[in-house]
């Protein structure tokens, strides 16, 4: 069954967001000759919801050292800071899930209480430093003895201070504990199970189903039906990683030899970004994943499309690409379901062209980026396990045509 299912769009018109559009990326020039310099890859900007500020998207130009901008930035800083924290595809303060929502609420509470405490300390410090003093003219040091009444008053102050600190701390502990319990309780009603295995430096994602042949694998992307709690089973193949999608929930480590779990739920449609949060070697910085929350029906459609084996190549070029793929180094590591490529070293490529990004969130998906990635992965992600495969320019074109068809 190779019928092309429509790729469900997670775009939501409701809030004026267009997460898909931003991901299209400009297709860079496909290299005609490998001897030529590789195309300048367009790595950014990553998509941000509108409203995240113009100042953010401009940053491609900040490669030089525009120190003069620092002053400007200082002024704009206060203005943009609030805006910035409230809109982000990887922000703990822009919660779209109940878990992240509870945590953000708790955080604002802590911030309010602790900011008040900080203000009190600063005021006391200021007063202590500059208050007028009667005894300023007494001789220094030796003859000075603290006065009993003042000493007594300060001691009472200290007692009150200690009791106050204890009370605040106790209250905050109580709130923290309550929220922790709350989040734990939210996790009891997960309807869907996803198994995420972290590897250096990408995410293998497996959608489990009670019916064995309805399980499938993808990589570096998680799609969720909106409003449905999803249990994520977390495993690691090599070293410790940490699964973190800030908009949905806090992080949980993936530890070799152990199995962890977390439950996430997305309350509104959109695309969010997760990133490995535990240092895991060379390419810890480029180990991201896309989380797409979509309406239930679209999710089901996507799921069906993922269950299908790979689309058969339709034109000559793609057929040639498939041949190259199956006879070159690609086949040593990758799976394309429906072909003889069945190795599980690298990501499953059955529907690679339908994913938002390649190389674990390093580049937005586009044919041009894919070309650059295959031609010289070690330039884009030095140290990653994807080797430089010696393909001729022609072979590369064919493989590209083939992979780009794997929707």
């Amino acid at each position, binding site marked *: 069954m190779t019928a092309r299912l429509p790729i469900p769009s997670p775009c939501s018109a409701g809030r004026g967001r267009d997460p898909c559009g931003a991901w299209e990326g400009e297709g860079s020039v496909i290299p005609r000759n490998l001897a030529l310099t590789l195309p300048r890859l367009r790595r950014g900007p990553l998509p941000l919801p509108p409203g995240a500020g113009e100042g953010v998207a401009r940053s491609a130009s900040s490669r030089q050292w525009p120190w003069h901008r620092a002053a400007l930035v200082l002024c704009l800083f206060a203005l943009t800071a609030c805006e910035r924290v409230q809109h982000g595809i990887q922000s703990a303060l822009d919660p779209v899930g109940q878990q992240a929502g509870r945590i953000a609420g708790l955080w604002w509470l802590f911030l309010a209480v602790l900011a008040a405490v900080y203000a009190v300390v600063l005021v006391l410090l200021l007063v202590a430093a500059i208050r007028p003093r009667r005894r300023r003219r007494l001789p220094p040091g030796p003859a000075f003895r603290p006065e009993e009444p003042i000493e007594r008053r300060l001691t009472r102050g200290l007692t009150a201070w200690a009791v106050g600190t204890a009370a605040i701390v106790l209250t905050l502990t109580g709130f923290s504990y309550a929220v922790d319990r709350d989040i734990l309780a939210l996790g009891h009603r997960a309807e869907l199970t996803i198994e995420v295995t972290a590897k250096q430096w990408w995410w293998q994602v497996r959608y489990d189903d009670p019916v064995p042949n309805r399980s499938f694998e993808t990589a570096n992307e998680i799609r969720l039906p909106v409003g449905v709690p999803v249990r994520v089973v977390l495993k690691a193949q090599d070293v410790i990683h940490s699964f973190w999608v800030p908009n949905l929930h806090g992080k949980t480590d993936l530890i070799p030899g152990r199995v962890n779990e977390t439950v996430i739920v997305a309350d509104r449609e959109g695309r969010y970004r997760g990133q490995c949060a535990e240092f895991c070697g*060379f390419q810890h910085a480029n180990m991201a994943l896309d989380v797409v929350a979509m309406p239930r029906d679209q999710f089901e459609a996507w799921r069906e499309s993922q269950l299908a084996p790979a689309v058969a190549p339709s034109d000559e070029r793609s057929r040639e690409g498939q041949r190259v793929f199956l*006879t070159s*180094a690609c086949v040593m590591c990758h799976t394309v379901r429906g072909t003889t490529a069945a190795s599980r070293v690298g990501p499953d490529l059955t529907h690679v062209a339908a994913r938002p990004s390649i190389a674990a969130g390093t580049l937005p998906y586009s044919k041009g980026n894919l070309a650059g990635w295959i031609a010289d992965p070690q330039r884009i992600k030095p*140290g990653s396990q994807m*080797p*430089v495969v*010696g393909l001729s320019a022609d072979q590369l074109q064919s493989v590209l045509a083939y992979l780009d068809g794997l929707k």
Partner: protein
Amino acid sequence: MSSPCRRSASLAVLAVLALAACDREEREPRGAPVGESGPGAIAQGTLYAGEPSPPDPRRQEYEGNAYHLAQGKQLYVWFNCGTCHANGGGDIGPPLMDDSWIYGDSLENIFATIVQGRPNGMPSFRNKIPETQIWEIAAYVRSMSGQTPTAASPGRNDSLNAKPAEQRTPKAEPKQSTPGGPQVEGRQ
């Protein structure tokens, strides 16, 4: 020994140490620039000990480098070399951790064996594995019988303890053997 003499001597020692350390610890993920290597350029090992081929610069580059050896070890697992050669003890294929070599024990010979394949079951991996990775695997294969510098050879794996790590393997004195021997025994 006079003081300047001593100083220069100690500097020399330091320099040698430094070079060794740099080579051993370099992590060049791209591997060596591809040169005129390829299986065609490889000196074929004779069946019996013959003229030693001139040392290839890649020996130092791959065999003395901890990162390449570790990558080789990982690829050995990923590319299922163990299906035939087990953890080096040999199964369907000949053992790799002993002292007998049918097609030569040099890095170049092993490279050629992987690229070209050999009769009686060793497939050719030409175009299937990028050359850099083949050099890494070949260097790792040599580390299994202790041919690589101990300081660079891999330590134990985070897996079931099948044998002591390569860095603890005593160096075996390679000797050539005929294609008959262990392989045929292995295949029964």
